[in-house]
């Protein structure tokens, strides 16, 4: 019987193996991503990329928008309840604008996309493994990474930052709604103050995070699918694991990026 120490060691090795596989998959996809590009790539891969952009991005718009509106109102209300005591209610505008651009917009989007698309990637690829479709691709001389993963990854790289921008806009506008009803501040003036409080590096840091989150979600979802062994129950487990692992890694990556930007003098 394994001792607790052996158990810890085995789990640590499993985690390292997982991270190693993620890296191998990432590099293989980066080598194959040219095939999913328009004009220079394969037109069928680009068509698939567009289809994935619609699924990951356009279909998620209502959900991401609603989440951002609710979070914007919550952040404004929570901020106002404290800042009102110091007569600094106008700082709610900065709080919502900067908070969303740097942090909440990309993070909320990543959580929504992880739940919707990360799980869908794992389920789709897992089912393809169980039904021998991945083997069929290989024997037809297709490379599964190029055929399946490259379009999904490219689509995520395009859709997730775009969704983050929409999320930022919805959150900031929701803050404006709150300010209008609580202080009668006009929306035009609110937007002027909001835009004054945001600088380019806020937007850029948010977009860098979005790209990193898209990478995590696409690769964890696909890797979980490729790791499926067995029957339909394994597909179910991989779907759950894709959402849990990608959400966890997104939050860890967020903390790392925030620390890097903080200590390098950037936001």
């Amino acid at each position, binding site marked *: 019987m394994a001792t607790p120490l052996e158990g810890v060691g085995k789990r640590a090795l499993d985690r390292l193996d997982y991270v190693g596989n993620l890296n191998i998959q990432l590099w293989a996809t980066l080598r194959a991503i040219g095939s999913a590009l328009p004009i220079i790539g394969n037109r069928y891969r680009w068509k698939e990329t567009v289809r994935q952009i619609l699924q990951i991005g356009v279909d998620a718009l209502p959900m991401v928008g609603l989440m951002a509106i609710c979070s914007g109102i919550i952040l404004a209300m929570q901020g106002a309840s404290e800042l009102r005591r110091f007569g600094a209610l106008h700082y709610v505008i900065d709080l919502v604008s900067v908070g969303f651009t740097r942090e909440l917009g990309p993070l909320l989007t990543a959580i929504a996309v992880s739940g919707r698309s990360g799980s869908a990637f794992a389920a789709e690829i897992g089912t393809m493994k169980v*039904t021998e479709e991945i*083997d*069929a691709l290989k*024997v*037809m*001389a297709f490379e599964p990474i190029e055929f399946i993963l490259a379009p999904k990854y490219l689509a995520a790289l395009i859709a997730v930052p775009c969704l983050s921008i929409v999320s930022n806009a919805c959150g900031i506008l929701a803050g404006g709604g709150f300010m209008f009803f609580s202080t009668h501040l006009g929306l035009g003036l609110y937007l002027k103050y909001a835009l004054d409080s945001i600088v380019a590096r806020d937007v850029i840091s948010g977009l860098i995070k979005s790209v990193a989150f898209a990478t995590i979600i696409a690769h964890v979802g696909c890797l979980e699918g490729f790791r499926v062994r067995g029957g339909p129950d394994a597909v179910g487990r991989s779907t759950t694991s894709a959402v849990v692992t990608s959400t966890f890694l997104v939050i860890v990556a967020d903390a790392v990026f925030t620390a890097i930007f903080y200590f390098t003098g950037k936001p």
Partner: protein
Amino acid sequence: MSLISIRDLVVEYDGRHVLDGLNLDIESGETMVLLGGSGSGKSTLLRQIIGLERPKSGRVVVKGTDITRCSPGELMRFRRSVGVAFQSAALFNSLTVEENVALPLREHTALAPSIIDLVVWMKLVVLGLADFGKLLPQELSGGMKKRAAVARALALDPEILVFDEPSAGLDPIVAAELDELILLLKQAFQMTVIVVTHELPSAFRIADRIAMLYQGKFLAVGTKEEVSKSKDPHIRQFLDRIPDNITQAAAVSAYFKQYLQNREETS
């Protein structure tokens, strides 16, 4: 020189020998049936022949190329000369039957779309699926799915056609139809056919030669007549459908007879 030459092939899973030093030659234009019970290693052998897995040791040489050691480019070239009809058909569920058959043509040839449509139609006509091209795989019966998988496997006019358990899950009539289809295809296209099966009527109908596998080793390789006359106890057990532990089977049968007798007496 044989078309396919397997030498000293050893495959291990978790230290367990699944294939144990196999040697086999498959000649051009013959139908070789790999026969054996569940767990005998026939599907593993098939995966080695089509280059889906790499062995622990040994060689699989196809037309002078050792596919266990060749470069990825050579493996891709080899795969384009092989058509595989999987046990589960492995059709892509998001594509229609026509699109499934057109996929390898679309991606691996420079044929004009109108010519691809014509080739696809011809393949579907040969397989008796001309009226079902627009349907999705989930709208087909089990037998039609298998035929659609054969149509896709034939798309690039392969030199070698491989069937994994073609009769599995089919009723006897549809299974017999598929056997006739395999014979017809071989006659019409002069292909080398490899079939993995455990169905005796099917094996003896279509085979030119039979390789009988038992616990990862060949018990016999020869013509249908040679195999059917074999005195090997394992071959006789398989061909005569004798249960593994006949004494136990007799004891269970006696127990149930006694049980039913007792029930009749008490009622």
